[in-house]
C-alpha cells in the first residue's frame, strides 16, 4: 500500500440529541484505503457508515481526528470527491444532459466541450437517447445512472457511494452492480461504497470494513480476493458463498447488539 487513497485517523463524531445528550456515531475510527481500491463499508443501520462517508465527503465537519486524501486534509466538499446518494439527488429542473453538464461547467470547461464530454458519460451509463429527459420522466434505475454519469463526468479521484442501489429493484440492482464494477475497472478510482447488503459488498469490493453498532467503529476488515473479474461465475464460486456466510455472521452479530442497544 504505497499510495494511499483515503486515510481516516482517529475520527470520532457525535450528534447533539434533542435533550442535550449527544449520540456517539463514530468512535476513534481508523481506516486506510489504498489508491484505486474498491472499498465497502458494511454494517447495520445506525452504525455510522453513512456518517463516515459524509465526513470523507466533507459534508459534515470533522470533530476529532483527521481525514486525509491525496488532495490534502478534508475540510469541505470538493470535486476531487464525487458522491452518489441513495435517492439520486439529481437537479430535478435540469434535463439529464444539463445535470451532467453542470459540474463540467464548474470546472471551467466551455459549453460545447462540456456537452461533448457529458454525452460521452451519458452513453457510458447507457442513457443515450434520454439526454433531454427530466429526472421525473425516468425510472429509478435510469435516474441513478444519470447521477452516476454526473459524478463520473467530473473525474473525481475518489468516488463515494451512499447505498446507491438501495432504492432499486433486485434485477436493476444486479445490472447496475456489474456495470459499476466494469466502469471502475476501465477507469480506476478509489471507491468507498456504503451498503448494508452483504452480497453487494462481497460482489463489488476488494476489501470490506464491517462496522460495529453504536458507537460505530470498524470491527473487522476482510479482503475478498475474488479477482478482478466479477460476474455470475464469481457468484457461483465456493469462495464467494463462504465469504458471504462468514461476513453475514459478523454483520449479524453487530445487528443483534445494535437492536438490543436501541431497546
Amino acid at each position, binding site marked *: 500500500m504505497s499510495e494511499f487513497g483515503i486515510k481516516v485517523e482517529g475520527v470520532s463524531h457525535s450528534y447533539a440529541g434533542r435533550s442535550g445528550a449527544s449520540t456517539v456515531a463514530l468512535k476513534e475510527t481508523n481506516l486506510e484505503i489504498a489508491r484505486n481500491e474498491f472499498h465497502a463499508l458494511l454494517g447495520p443501520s445506525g452504525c455510522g457508515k453513512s456518517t463516515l462517508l459524509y465526513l470523507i465527503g466533507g459534508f459534515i465537519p470533522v470533530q476529532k481526528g483527521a481525514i486525509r486524501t491525496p488532495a490534502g486534509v478534508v475540510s*469541505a466538499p470538493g470535486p476531487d470527491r464525487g*458522491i452518489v*446518494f441513495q435517492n439520486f*439527488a439529481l*437537479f430535478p429542473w435540469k*434535463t439529464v444532459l444539463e445535470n451532467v453538464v*453542470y459540474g463540467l461547467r464548474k470546472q471551467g470547461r466551455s459549453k460545447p466541450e462540456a456537452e461533448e464530454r457529458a454525452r460521452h458519460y451519458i452513453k457510458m451509463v447507457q442513457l443515450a437517447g434520454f439526454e433531454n429527459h427530466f429526472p421525473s*420522466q425516468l425510472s429509478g434505475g435510469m435516474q441513478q445512472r444519470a447521477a452516476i454519469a454526473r459524478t463520473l463526468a467530473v473525474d473525481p479521484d475518489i468516488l463515494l457511494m451512499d447505498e446507491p442501489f438501495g432504492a432499486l429493484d433486485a434485477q436493476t440492482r444486479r445490472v447496475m452492480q456489474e456495470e459499476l464494477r466494469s466502469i471502475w475497472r476501465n477507469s480506476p478510482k478509489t471507491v468507498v461504497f456504503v451498503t448494508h447488503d452483504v452480497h453487494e459488498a462481497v460482489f463489488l469490493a476488494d476489501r470490506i470494513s464491517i462496522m460495529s453498532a453504536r458507537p460505530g467503529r470498524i470491527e473487522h476488515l476482510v479482503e475478498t480476493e475474488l479477482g478482478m473479474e466479477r460476474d455470475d461465475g464469481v457468484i457461483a464460486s465456493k469462495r464467494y458463498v463462504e465469504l458471504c456466510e462468514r461476513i453475514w455472521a459478523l454483520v449479524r452479530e453487530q445487528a443483534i447488539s445494535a437492536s438490543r442497544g436501541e431497546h
Partner: protein
Amino acid sequence: MSALEAGHVRPAARSGPRFGTGLLVQTGVLLALFALWEASTRLGLAHPFLLPPLSDVLVRLYQDAIGGAVFVDLGLTLYRALTGFLIAAALGIPLGILMARTKFFGWFFEPLISIGFPMPKVAFVPIFILWFDIYDTSKIIMVVFSCFFPIVMATHAGTKNVDKWPLWSARALGTKESRLLWEVILPLASPQILTGLQIALPVGMITTVVTEMLMGGRGVGGAMIQAGRFADSVGVFAGIIEIALLGMLVIRGLELIRARLLIWHPEARH
C-alpha cells in the same frame, strides 16, 4: 398478455374521453345555472329588481363593451391588482428567502408574519385612507399589503425546507456557497413560491374590488357601487360577471405560467 395490454392501453383510453366529459359536464352545469336564472326571472319567481334576467345583464354587458367604458374600469382594476401583486412579490420573495437563510431575519419577522397573515387586511382601509388618500396609491398599497403575507409565508417555507441532497450534490460538484441560493435553492423552492403567488393573486383581485368599493372612483368595484346607488341592479350584476371573467382570465394566466416554468416537475405529467 391481456393484463399487460390492458395496463398499457387503459390510461390513454381513459384520459381522452374523461377530459372531454369533464369539460362537457362543467359547461352543462353553468348552462343549467344560467337557464335556471333566466327562467326564474321570466316566470316571475324572482323580482326583476332583485334578480334581473340574465338576458338583460348580457345586453348591458354588450352595450358597455360597445361603449368602451367598461374597458377603462376593467383596465384600472387589472392595473391596480397586478401592480400591487407584483410589488408584493418583489418584496415578499426576497424577505421570505432572507428569513429562511438568516437567523436574525427569521427571529425578527416570523412573529410579525404570523400575526399579519390571518389578520383581515381590509380593516386597514380607514388608516390607509388617512395615510395615502383614496386614489391609486392607497388602493395599490392595500393590494400589496394583502398579497404580501401569503407570498412571504410560501417563500419562507419553500426555501427553508429544501431537500439537502441536491444541495450536497451541488457542493460536491464545486458550487460555491454564495451561488447555492441562485443555482439550487431557488429552483428547488420554485413550486412552493409559485403556489404562494397563486394564493396571493385572487386575494389581490378581491382586495382591489373591495377597496374600489370602499374608496369609490373608477374601476369595476367603484362602478358596481355607483350602479347600486342608482338602483341599477342590472349594472351590479354586469359588474359581478365582468369581475368574475377578469379574475378567471388572470388566474388562468398564472396557471399557464406555472405550467411553463415547472415543465420539469412531476405535476406536469399526469
